[in-house]
């Protein structure tokens, strides 16, 4: 039993070179619908298997915020247009092992894009830090 974050990186350079990544605004409405349906179906499947913990999509634009010393309001900045890497959202799964997490991320990365072709989106799989186990020696 282990929880993994599957972080959806949306970056133009993520696709294999022979399949240039087409941003969603270049898809047909049907292709967009198919993509969204795939995402919901995937989540439903995880609920059925008892592996679903959380899924969230994020607005593409955010603000960077930083402490700026006592008595001062925090500094805000961004968005940073040069940032090629954009976190589109995440899913959290609770699975038997790492292999299963990788298998699921591979499936999620096959979400359909333009012409119904898998978009080959990069997913970053990161384990949660857990509570310490009782038996260690």
């Amino acid at each position, binding site marked *: 039993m282990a929880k993994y974050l599957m972080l959806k990186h949306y970056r133009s350079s993520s696709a294999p070179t022979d399949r240039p990544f087409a941003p969603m605004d270049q898809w047909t409405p049907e292709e967009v619908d198919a993509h969204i349906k795939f995402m919901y179906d995937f989540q439903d499947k995880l*609920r059925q*298997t*008892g592996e679903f*913990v959380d899924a969230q999509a994020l607005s593409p634009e955010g603000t960077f915020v930083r402490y700026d010393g006592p008595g001062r309001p925090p500094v805000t900045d961004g968005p940073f247009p040069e940032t090629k890497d954009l976190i589109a959202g995440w899913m959290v799964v*609770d699975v038997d092992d790492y292999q299963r997490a990788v298998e699921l991320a591979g499936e999620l990365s096959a979400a359909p894009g333009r012409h119904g072709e898998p978009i080959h989106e990069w997913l970053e799989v990161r384990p949660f*830090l857990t*509570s*310490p186990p*009782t*038996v260690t020696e």
Partner: protein
Amino acid sequence: MTPGVDDATLRELVPAVLGVLARRGADFATAEDAVQEALVEAVVRWESEPPTDAKGWLVTVAWRKFLDLTRSDVARRGREERLLAQPEAGPTESADDTLALYFLCAHPSLTHTSAVALTLRAVGGLTTRQIAAAYLVPETTMAQRISRAKRTVSDVRLGQPGDLQTVLLTLYLVFNEGHSGDVDLAAEAIRLTRQLAAVTDDPEVDGLLALMLLHHARRDARVDADGRLVPLAKQDRTRWRTDLVAEGVDLLQAALIRDALGPYQAQAAIAALHADARTVDETDWVQIVEWYDELLALTDSPVVRLNRAVAIGQADGPRAGLAALSDVDDTVPRYAAAAAFLHERDGDLATAATLYVEAAEAAQNLAERDHLNREAARLRSVPGSR
């Protein structure tokens, strides 16, 4: 909670009640739901009307719930009369039922995750909500996990001989989970292992129970007032629970006499040797190394090799420990932490500090990462360690 009947006492009756229903011909999945509903009703009703025969009450109510749940099926299959003709359970059958239930819930066809969930619900009598909260997943997810597990074992006949090893592993996993939310999983694992020990005759069951008790005894000493992890060597041993240590040692000694050593007994023996030492300097590391050798012969795992190397470092000096470590696969979790510890004891503080940082990066839990970062910081604040 109910006057006279606390939650744990109520839940102790679950396997026997489920067993009666199963022997009357009820299918496991529906019977299990029926018992859960009866438990919920018991919590409500017993407050004002405590039963004279708690088990009898639960059987009656669970059976009624079962009939409600299957009413539509019953008419079709003409099952009701046949089922009602089945006899009640006697005491021996009750023990067999309990064991059969453990086997079913940890059936080898289930994944570890599923076996854990099903065992906590069907044997432990915990609600889906409690199990979900304990494992920090949504209740709907846990409900699906449990119902899938029930479907997986739906063709397994209750009472078929099972695999005790998967049962023990399931209970061990519950114990080792470490969360401490509303449901105390370690205490629940001990309760379930105790219950298993009462209906089995295998020294490994007692070995596992002893292992759990000996580790549970140290629980209060493992974390300081600020929530920091305290390593074994630095624990305040006066805070170890002597009652649990005594019970664990007694169980272990009785198990070892039967001369059927297994990995749980060997691990419990190591824990008992730590428990025996009033101060860390009194630890009998030579015997601990011998037990690691036994454990290695029983189960050649890299984790055991790693822990053995650390014990050799204590028994024969850090150089010997580092030599033993060189035979261990360096991808095993906590490898860097063990290496850091041995280098520190060898006086090479700079290397040790670097390894502690590396170990912190590889840590799989937050408390351990924080601890390893503190160790690195401690060494680096020593003059001349950089």
